[in-house]
């Protein structure tokens, strides 16, 4: 009972903070917050399959792309679509698809979930590093399809003028919902089964866990939130093209979940803020620098060099990340106990 009250209070106060930030913050910091919010959604759901279930996969860019395109197509008004599809005429079904923001987001999430269900058969036939390669290939294939089906996706030109409904109220609230959902999932029966698969898949099978089904469920859940996050991303930046959904996106999410600790949701939360904030703060690395009076010129990509080195260093010296696979609350509790004894 006491726990329930604390949780309700925490959720209510977070909502209050989101509301306050939405109404009182300047556009630039708010846009960074929005970015962080979207990446929180993506990273949390990526951590569910990679960290909690231990199935190292590299496909989020594919699911984000599906969600983003789906939501965008539902949101763009029909007249705009007729003007926008320049390469070929849009397919009739594209013109008919119209929805409000929330149904459009859900459609994006459900489309990703459906694709996740379809590909789980070939994907979970393999384990370990093969799984990584197959899912990486899936991400590539999605991008290639987005390039080559101009009647649906407008090809390489992508979609623009997506109505920007996604403000911080939406992004923050959905981020909070994702977080609460993830915490509840990992503390449920399914979550324990997922962790059992991560620790020892064969032992989990022997204990009667239907590993294939649990993995598929985790994959679909992860895909749903990635799709929704993709929809938010599309509406937030209001223009999408296949080139945005490359492996770079997956790589950023990978850094986040490795830094936070594979399997730790609170760790992911903290790491998202650190990495996305760091990306913003390190922006100066990409621009012209003046070192001892010598102008180095602009270096687009310097930030990614730094982040790649960060990832390698983390793997070499601090493989567990910030929190390992524990949550922040567990760490505080164990500190507390040690003090007492």
């Amino acid at each position, binding site marked *: 009972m006491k726990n329930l009250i604390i949780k309700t209070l925490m959720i209510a106060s977070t909502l209050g903070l989101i509301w306050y930030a939405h109404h009182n913050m300047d556009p630039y910091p708010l846009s960074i917050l929005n970015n962080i919010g979207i990446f929180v959604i993506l990273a949390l759901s990526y951590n569910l399959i990679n960290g909690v279930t231990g199935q190292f996969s590299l496909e989020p860019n594919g699911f984000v792309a599906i969600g983003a395109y789906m939501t965008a197509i539902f949101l763009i008004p029909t007249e705009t679509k007729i003007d926008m599809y320049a390469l070929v005429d849009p397919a009739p079904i594209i013109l008919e698809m119209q929805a409000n923001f929330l149904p459009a987001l859900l459609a994006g999430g459900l489309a990703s979930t459906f694709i996740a269900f379809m590909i789980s058969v*070939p994907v979970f036939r393999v384990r*370990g590093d093969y799984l990584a390669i197959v899912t*990486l290939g899936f991400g590539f294939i999605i991008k290639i399809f987005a390039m080559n089906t101009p009647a649906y996706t407008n090809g390489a030109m992508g979609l623009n003028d997506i109505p920007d409904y996604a403000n911080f109220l939406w992004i923050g609230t959905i981020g909070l919902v994702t977080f609460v959902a993830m915490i509840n999932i990992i503390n449920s029966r399914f979550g324990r089964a997922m962790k059992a698969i991560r620790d020892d898949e064969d032992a989990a099978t022997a204990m009667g866990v239907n590993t294939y089904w649990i993995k598929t469920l985790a994959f679909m859940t992860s895909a749903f939130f990635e799709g929704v996050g993709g929809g938010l991303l599309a509406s937030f930046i209001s223009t999408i093209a296949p080139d945005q959904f490359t492996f770079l996106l997956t790589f950023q999410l990978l850094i986040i979940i490795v830094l936070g600790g594979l399997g730790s949701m609170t760790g992911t939360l903290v790491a998202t803020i650190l990495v996305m904030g760091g990306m913003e703060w390190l922006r100066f690395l990409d621009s012209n620098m003046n070192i001892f009076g010598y102008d180095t010129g602009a270096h687009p*990509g310097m930030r990614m060099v730094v982040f790649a080195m960060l990832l*390698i260093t983390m*793997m070499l010296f601090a493989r567990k990340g910030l929190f390992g696979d524990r949550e922040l609350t567990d760490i505080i509790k164990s500190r507390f106990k040690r003090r007492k004894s």
Partner: protein
Amino acid sequence: MDLSTFLQQLVNGISLGSMYALIAIGYTMVYGTLRLINFAHGDIMMVGAFLVYLAVAVGLPFPVAVLVAIAGSMAVGVMTDKIAYKPLRDAPKISLLITAIGISFFLENLFNVLFGGVPKAFPAPGYLTISFKLGDVILPLMVIVIPVITVLILGAVLWVLFKTKYGMAIRALAFDIPTVKLMGINADYIISIVFALGSALAAIGGIFYAISYPSIDPLMGVIVGLKAFAAAVLGGIGSVTGAVLGGFILGFTEIFVVALFPELGGYKDAFAFFFLILVLLFKPTGIMGKDLERGRF
């Protein structure tokens, strides 16, 4: 499709397949010994091409530049192993894989910062870009040179693997690293040789690629690398001849499917992954592979 078009596509397929094969050998050898998908292997190929560009820009003649580039790529390959992979030999495989992804990203972005992301013209000398005409078939010189060199290299690699002491050590590592160490073999030294050999082949593949499609950019190794990995799995990962076979099958498929169904041209880069998924679904050991747990080249 008439005969001359067929022959034209055939030589194109052989040439493309050879390049995939050269890169696939490196994947298969590293996987055979360390059970690691070396994500950075495709980027070593890019490093090779860029080092030629750099060496020619400095003023070296082209053949010397090629040798310098191969040596440089070998050094980069061995260094990635020493710095990033060696400390993680006993770590979970996933950590190794994440590190490999990190190295791959590091190399791509480092070269992006150093050389810029705009594709550069590759300084191939004139005597390598001439082409002959046989009837209606146009034969660029490289289309003949590439397969010949690939076959020679394959022979050399097989000779090293099966006729030399080092080859025997490499094959032994593929079975069991701790036991090999107990036998008094310096396992890390042998692994370095594997990386050096694989990187040299990747660099040669990258230089061929750069001469055939005369432009280079920091991301050129990504797609080619993944395709070569798919080729290695198709042929049976851990098997060198399998890697070559897989490379040729993939090269031919890409060329002929696009020649027969031009409307599928945009999906060319996806074939490799369809192959990969099909192989993993129906015959995970690939064409030449025996048992994945006991790779033996």
